[in-house]
């Protein structure tokens, strides 16, 4: 890239950037530091691994919440990926009524504040008399995941031209064979990144889940929320560090995984 000569030794923008990065990382570093703190209160009293021991041996509620999060994340991401991928294929390659309509209603859930989606779904479920629980959380998560899958797959599809479908049909493939043998393999990187994005968003969500959850359907963010309502809890520090490490590892493996698919 071009490096212009009038960026001098001191650069205002570079200073702001550097300070911003420190600002972004500093809270996370404090969490890491305090997760090794011996005492329960904020003051540093000495190095200890006791909160990690407690996290892994004596936090059954936390792990149950983690289990719920995993179930919701995987199932909602799977459903959103199947539905969203089909939608993107239809919108990208065919002209039909309601086509513009689908494009518009996939934008809205992405931009609307989460609380609106949460509140409207809560009102909707209770209006229909559906009992709040893991199922309603699953439905809500599919709703906010679907648009992301749709857009990511669409972005991938836009790189291909329609003639490959025509070729497939000319060579005698049925619509389903074309979908299975031609469209899906070509779109796989987009589908995978859609799926992984959906899993991440689902694991991350607090606000929408908070409104549509019911007894026995505590997800990990909800557990963290109830723990921090009672102030600083060192087990949450340890959990944060494990989660930060987890995301870094996941992101790293995701990158390699996606590259592998793209290379095929």
């Amino acid at each position, binding site marked *: 890239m071009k490096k212009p000569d009038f960026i001098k030794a001191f650069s205002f923008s570079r200073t702001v950037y550097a300070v911003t990065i420190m600002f972004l990382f500093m809270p996370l570093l404090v969490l890491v530091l305090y997760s090794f703190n011996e005492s329960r209160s904020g003051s540093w009293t000495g190095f200890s691994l006791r909160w990690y021991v407690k996290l892994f041996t004596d936090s059954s509620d936390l792990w149950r919440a983690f289990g719920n999060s995993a179930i919701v994340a995987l199932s909602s991401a799977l459903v959103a990926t199947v539905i969203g991928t089909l939608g993107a294929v239809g919108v990208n390659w065919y002209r039909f009524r309601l086509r513009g309509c689908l494009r518009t209603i996939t934008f809205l859930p992405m931009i609307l504040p989460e609380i609106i989606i949460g509140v409207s779904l809560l009102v909707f479920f209770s209006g229909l008399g559906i009992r709040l629980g893991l199922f309603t959380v699953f439905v809500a998560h599919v*709703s906010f995941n679907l648009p992301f899958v749709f857009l990511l797959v669409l972005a991938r599809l836009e790189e291909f031209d329609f003639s490959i479908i025509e070729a497939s049909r000319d060579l005698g493939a049925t619509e389903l064979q074309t979908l299975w043998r031609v469209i899906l393999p070509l779109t796989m990187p987009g589908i995978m990144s859609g799926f992984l994005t959906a899993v991440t968003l689902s694991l991350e969500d607090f606000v929408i889940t908070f409104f549509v959850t019911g007894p026995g359907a505590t997800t990990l963010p909800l557990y963290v929320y109830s723990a921090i309502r009672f102030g600083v809890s060192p087990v949450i520090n340890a959990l944060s560090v494990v989660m930060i490490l987890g995301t870094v590892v996941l992101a790293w493996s995701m990158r390699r995984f996606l590259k592998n698919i793209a290379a095929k």
Partner: protein
Amino acid sequence: MRRGPGLAYASPSLLWLTFFFIAPLLIIVLYSFLTPGQRGGVDLPFTLNAYRAIANPSFGKVVVGTIAVALAATFFTLLIALPCGYYMARSSKQTLLLLLVIIPFWTNFLIRIYAWIAILGNEGFLNDLLRWLGLAEESVRFLYNRAAVTLVLVYTYLPYAILPLFSTIDKFDFSLLEAARDLGATKFMAIRKVLLPNIRAGIFTAFLFTFIPIFGAYAVPLLVGGTNSYMLGNLIADELTKSRNWPLASAISLVITLVTTIGVMLLLRFNGTHILEKKHEKA
């Protein structure tokens, strides 16, 4: 583009979003014109009471407070994000600089809020540090006010502004800046008169991507704000679960939806649909 089984492909998406996104929004519209039921829920007759209640001074204060916090937080976010985006766009190590912005963002939303409680709390890192330095005897109360809410909101939504600004500035032709300098403009003037007008669309996108979620913020004011820094999102939740006034909760939700929709319409007129896809860079 051909005629074909497009609708068959699209119908699962259309049906799902109609049932579990559009229908709930329409129910909210309906509920906002009804009377609160005995134990939550709604009853007839139709009335405008919920909308009158929003205009009432005690709620008016929260509306004004929410707008003030949202504008202040968005302003600071853009103020920080602009130089950051500029520096990233001009750098030769763009991928690294982008990663540094995105990595903290991968950390769970609640954990990031929690980290600030651990720093600013009475028993937190900052008070610990001040005591250790001998600067404070008693704990200073940093949390539970508007300043804390604004700070944490800026922290939470900063990448939402940096990413669109970076991608707009990255497309800007920097030789224009050099031309302006050659023609005698100061560096400041070149940036103000040449760069800023050219990246207007990006600034507007960044503004909306931060203003909209902050305007509808719920978790941040709940956890680091006090009763006097409550925002509209908290009001909705209280009306739903504590006061059990569902029409009012629906009416406030509609106001937020309306503000968002108007913003998005302006954005689409401004620079086409493609920029909306930028938001997924988050994940």
